[in-house]
């Protein structure tokens, strides 16, 4: 039996790069506390500062000192929202603008502020996943404290116009945060070009270890610790340094920056190939996400008539790993909030699959997926109660 293994869930997480792994194995012995003044401490300190410079370079930050290490994307995002809570509760300017398609950690952090009495707006998006700029302009005003919009969406890959969003927010004196967890390492990211105050990134999405991430904080932008304690990270994030994670992060960030142009071209080509093969071989599908402003690696497809979890498990039995926006996979009755926000009917949202490609994806793997997928969709559609003809309208 064919026991092939094809990983196409790189947006969920990425494997540890061998180069990063090798460095981390050596770093296992860098046990010094980076806050200590003696030699061992200084060695760890030097390694950590090197990582900070690499991360700053990756996100186009002029000052490495603007980068703070955290345990990952969720902590970075929560640190920003917690800061806004502490500022906003004492003043009239406290409105928060975010979007309906954010990662749950932003949605839930924003919902928490709403519970605390802050005015919070979840902006709608269009059919391609771009935020409604008209609605955005209408919400902006002198009462806005924070605008938080993700740089690229994890499910459909749509890239928002962060530069323009920030420009409009700045004109009203609001702070701007972007969750760039999915954008970093896949497309150019620049805190200077975008002129954002805060930017979130995570290491395990760029072939580094889990449990480490960073928050960029522009000089003079307010920031309050989520975790209080020692003076690490200028008092912004207490806790003994995670030497191993940070050292791995440094190498992953360095390689991500160095290889970005090659990555975009190669992975983008493979994504286009997979998309074209699916369109050619499977009737009645819808490609979700923006046709141009999208991550080079993310392909989200709706297969009406076939239920997402059944597709996912059928692919899994062929050794192919993907994810789905179907409710069944999450155990709730609601399909993906992102797919609902772009206006897909539940019939299309429940039958959606996200293929996220990555550094180790090969042309051969794309062909394998394109070969295994059509009979799976055909089989599930054949036993389906959903008449395909009735859904033809929704696909457009």
């Amino acid at each position, binding site marked *: 039996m064919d026991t092939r293994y094809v990983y196409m869930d790189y947006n969920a997480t990425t494997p540890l790069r061998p180069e990063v792994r090798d460095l981390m194995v050596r770093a296992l012995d860098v046990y010094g506390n980076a806050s200590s003044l003696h030699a061992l401490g200084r060695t760890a300190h030097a390694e950590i500062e090197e990582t900070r410079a690499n991360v700053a370079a990756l996100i186009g930050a002029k000052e490495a000192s603007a980068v703070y290490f955290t345990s990952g994307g969720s902590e970075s995002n929560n640190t920003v929202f917690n800061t806004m809570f502490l500022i906003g509760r004492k003043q009239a300017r406290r409105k928060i603008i975010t979007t309906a398609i954010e990662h749950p950690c932003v949605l839930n952090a924003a919902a928490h502020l709403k519970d605390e009495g802050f005015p919070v707006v979840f902006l709608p998006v269009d059919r391609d996943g771009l935020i409604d700029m008209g609605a955005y302009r209408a919400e902006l005003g002198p009462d806005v404290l924070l605008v938080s919009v993700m740089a690229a969406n994890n499910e459909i890959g749509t890239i928002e116009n962060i530069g323009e969003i920030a420009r409009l927010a700045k004109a009203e004196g609001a702070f701007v945060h972007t969750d760039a967890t999915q954008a970093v390492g896949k497309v150019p990211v620049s805190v200077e070009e975008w002129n954002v105050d805060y930017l979130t990134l995570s290491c395990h999405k760029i072939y580094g270890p889990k449990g480490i991430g960073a928050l960029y904080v522009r000089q003079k932008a307010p920031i309050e610790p989520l975790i209080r304690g020692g003076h690490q990270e200028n008092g912004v994030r207490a806790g003994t340094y995670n030497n191993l994670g940070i050292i791995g992060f440094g190498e992953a960030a360095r390689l991500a920056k160095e290889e970005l142009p090659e990555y975009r071209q190669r992975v983008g080509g493979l994504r286009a190939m997979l998309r074209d093969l699916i369109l050619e071989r499977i009737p009645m599908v819808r490609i979700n996400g923006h046709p141009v402003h999208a991550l080079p690696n993310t392909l989200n497809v709706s297969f009406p*008539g*076939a*239920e*997402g*979890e*059944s597709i996912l*498990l*059928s692919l899994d*039995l062929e050794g192919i790993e993907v994810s789905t926006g*179907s*409710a*069944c*996979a999450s*155990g709730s*009755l609601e*399909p993906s909030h992102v797919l609902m926000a772009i206006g897909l009917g*539940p*019939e299309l949202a*429940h039958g959606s699959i996200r293929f996220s490609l990555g550094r180790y994806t090969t042309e051969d793997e794309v062909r394998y997926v394109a070969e295994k997928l059509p009979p799976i969709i055909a089989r599930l559609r*054949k*036993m*389906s*109660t*959903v008449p395909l003809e009735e859904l033809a309208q929704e696909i457009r």
Partner: protein
Amino acid sequence: MDVFQWLYSDTVKDHFTNPRNVYDPDRDKDFRPDAEGMVGNIRCGDQMMFMLKIEDDIITDVRWKTYGCASAIASTSMLSETVVGMNIRDAYHIRPADIANRLGGLPENKIHCSVLGDKALRAAIDVYLEQHGRAGEFKDESAQIICKCLNISDKDIEEAVRQGAHDWYTLQEATKIGTVCGSCKAKAEELLHEFVHIYG
């Protein structure tokens, strides 16, 4: 039970990849059912249809189709094998738990997916009884339908409560009650409280 272990047990995998008695539009063109029942709503992510051939109250053949997840497919496949040759009264009284046991039990978060098959089966039997001037014959002797959209009876609510559903949310998880039109909610909540009082 761990959902990952369950989905990959040999029995479940077998019924998911080779479902028994599933309707094939090419092969089953000439399948003429005596009764059909359909439950669920694709808006909630799943839907099930059961087709029965019945002679002298015995189920002689069945076909089914679904827009559903792996648990729904595997459970209904198992159910369809079980009911062939069975008296419609006995088939009507099959509990989802009986089917779950044959599949080696069911993980908590998959129970609500797996109950569609037996609901569709009952709906089909009800249609058959109605066609033969025996409307509600089994319902009357055992249960009262609370949720008309999904054909969920007071017995189903009772069973769900006995299995540990002690609030509206877990009752919905277990039975899907009130997930279509929602008009049964008041009556269902009343029963829920009653059964929680008895079994809780």
